[in-house]
């Protein structure tokens, strides 16, 4: 671990302490995990504490962990993952916050801390159905007007549920259930841990 990452981890421990659920360093990046009740306080500290000074929110996105890896279905399903950047100290940080309920996932909005979160939270709401209490204008953003469902959830089929076509009899554009069959050309494969390991064969 390089010196700058170590210093960052130390600063995080110092200022956030027991509010951090976990802190992990991998591939030269620091990831912290925060619980929903601590989320806003942690984010505010990350921006305002001069030693941390994460003055820019680079990215915020939803992730659906429901089919992750070998044994899916454990733990909370939805998370909001935020990427922060400190222009002042030239460091990056990833913050993950799992939404507490799977049927109505909610994560507090950080738009008041970083205005750039505005559209990112709208996008996460649109695509994953994660609600951000505190967001002033939580509308759909990328999908069609009147769209039903949250298309990036893992249980939403890639082909969608409805298709649109012009109906010559009614002389208007109509929605109908999709007519294409789902297909998978290359199956998804997660190899077991000992795959190709000649010693354990």
């Amino acid at each position: 671990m390089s010196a700058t990452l170590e210093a960052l981890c130390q600063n995080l421990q110092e200022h956030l302490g027991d509010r951090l659920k976990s802190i992990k360093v991998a591939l030269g990046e620091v990831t912290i995990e925060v619980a929903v009740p601590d989320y806003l306080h942690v984010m505010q500290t990350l921006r305002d504490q001069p030693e941390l000074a994460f003055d820019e929110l680079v990215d915020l996105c939803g992730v659906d962990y429901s089919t992750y890896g070998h044994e899916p279905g454990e733990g909370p399903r939805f998370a909001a993952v935020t990427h922060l950047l400190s222009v002042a100290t030239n460091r990056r940080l990833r913050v993950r916050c799992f939404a507490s309920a799977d049927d109505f996932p909610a994560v507090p909005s950080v738009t008041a801390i970083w205005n750039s979160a505005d559209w990112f939270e709208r996008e996460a709401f649109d695509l994953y159905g994660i609600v951000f209490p505190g967001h002033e204008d939580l509308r759909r953003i990328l999908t069609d007007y009147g769209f039903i469902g949250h298309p990036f959830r893992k249980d939403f089929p890639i082909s969608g549920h409805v298709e649109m076509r012009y109906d010559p009899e009614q002389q208007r554009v109509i929605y109908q259930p999709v007519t294409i069959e789902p297909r998978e050309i290359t199956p998804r494969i997660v190899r077991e841990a000992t795959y190709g390991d000649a010693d354990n064969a």
Partner: protein
Amino acid sequence: MPELRNFTLNFGPQHPAAHGVLRMVLELDGEVVVRADPHIGLLHRATEKLAETRTWIQSVPYMDRLDYMSMMCNEHAYCMAIERLLQIEVPIRAQYIRVMFDEITRILNHLLWVGCHGLDVGAMTMVLYAFREREDLVDAYEAVSGARMHAAYYRPGGVYRDLPDRMSQYQESKWKSAAQIRPFNAARSGSLLDFLDDFVSRFPKLLDEYETLLTDNRIWKQRLVDVGIVTPERALQRGFSGPMLRGSGIAWDLRKKQPYEVYDRLDFDIPVGVTGDSYDRYLVRMEEMRQSNRIVKQCIDWLRQNPGPVMSDNHKVAPPDREAMKSNMEELIHHFKLCTEGIHVPEGEVYSGVEHPKGEFGVYLVSDGANKPYRLKIRAPGYVHLSAMNEMARGHMLADVVTIIGSQDIVFGEIDR
């Protein structure tokens, strides 16, 4: 006295100045914008969801179609993310080739931008000049990848193949005689590097030509100066990056601050604006083209002297060469596994950002160890910039909205994804 009400205007999605499919609902008080509400998503193709159903390598061509004005930079962020997850080294020659094409892409993007921005605010001539030079650069794209736009040239582990030794030439036809095409082919008699060398030696003069048309032009300045001012504090608050951030006076460039590939070995400068208006952003982008030209020149000189491999020799990631595959069982197996099942990327998550011509283009990848990404998030710079539209346009006249859209340099391929 009659009751006065604000006027709501629908701008786009078929407006020529909307740069594609931007629909904006503008609330106007007379001719002054009170509120701007961009409606996006008309070009949404769910690239990120599609990538979850395809193997790692199959998604590379999708990246071209995000920001379809700076194709190779998109691929770069994606390939770099995979390489970081796999923890493999890219051969040094491939790194130089990538940097060279990143900068060619930057020039391509900025040329299109200055041409279209000119068209938007009434400088018709610019687009003709800009496309004349773009032609040479897309020919360079074609020479390495076979495609003028959607190259799919960068691959995890390096680049698809080495630079070609000869350029395609214009052929004699019944419309053009041999004497007529000779000047067109003059720079094309050598290799791709000779062709690019000729271009970089011509290009600074051409840039001067553009600047005589625009920089001190009275109309140009009347349309751009003091339009869409963003203070440095607001720029950070709104998550700006790239020329939009530098135009506001913050010297932030990933190529300098968090260098990737071989940018730390190259000599170039970062232009910074002062007032943060559209005119400053114009000046920043013009200077960036000059700096990109310098970088391309340095890459050409290095690439001439240093032959070598351009693809990783790790056959779990990069396919073996054809000849070895036909004669060697092990290589055949590798090839078969790669072309049917694809790469297996170890479990983990990574964010890789590159200094894209429009700003910071980031790819956040989550892998659960499968042969397909678990989650791919594309952080598009234009998305963030457009989200500040309301703030930037408020209080300006309707005609200035067009200037602001132009100076944000937005492309809907990346915003809608």
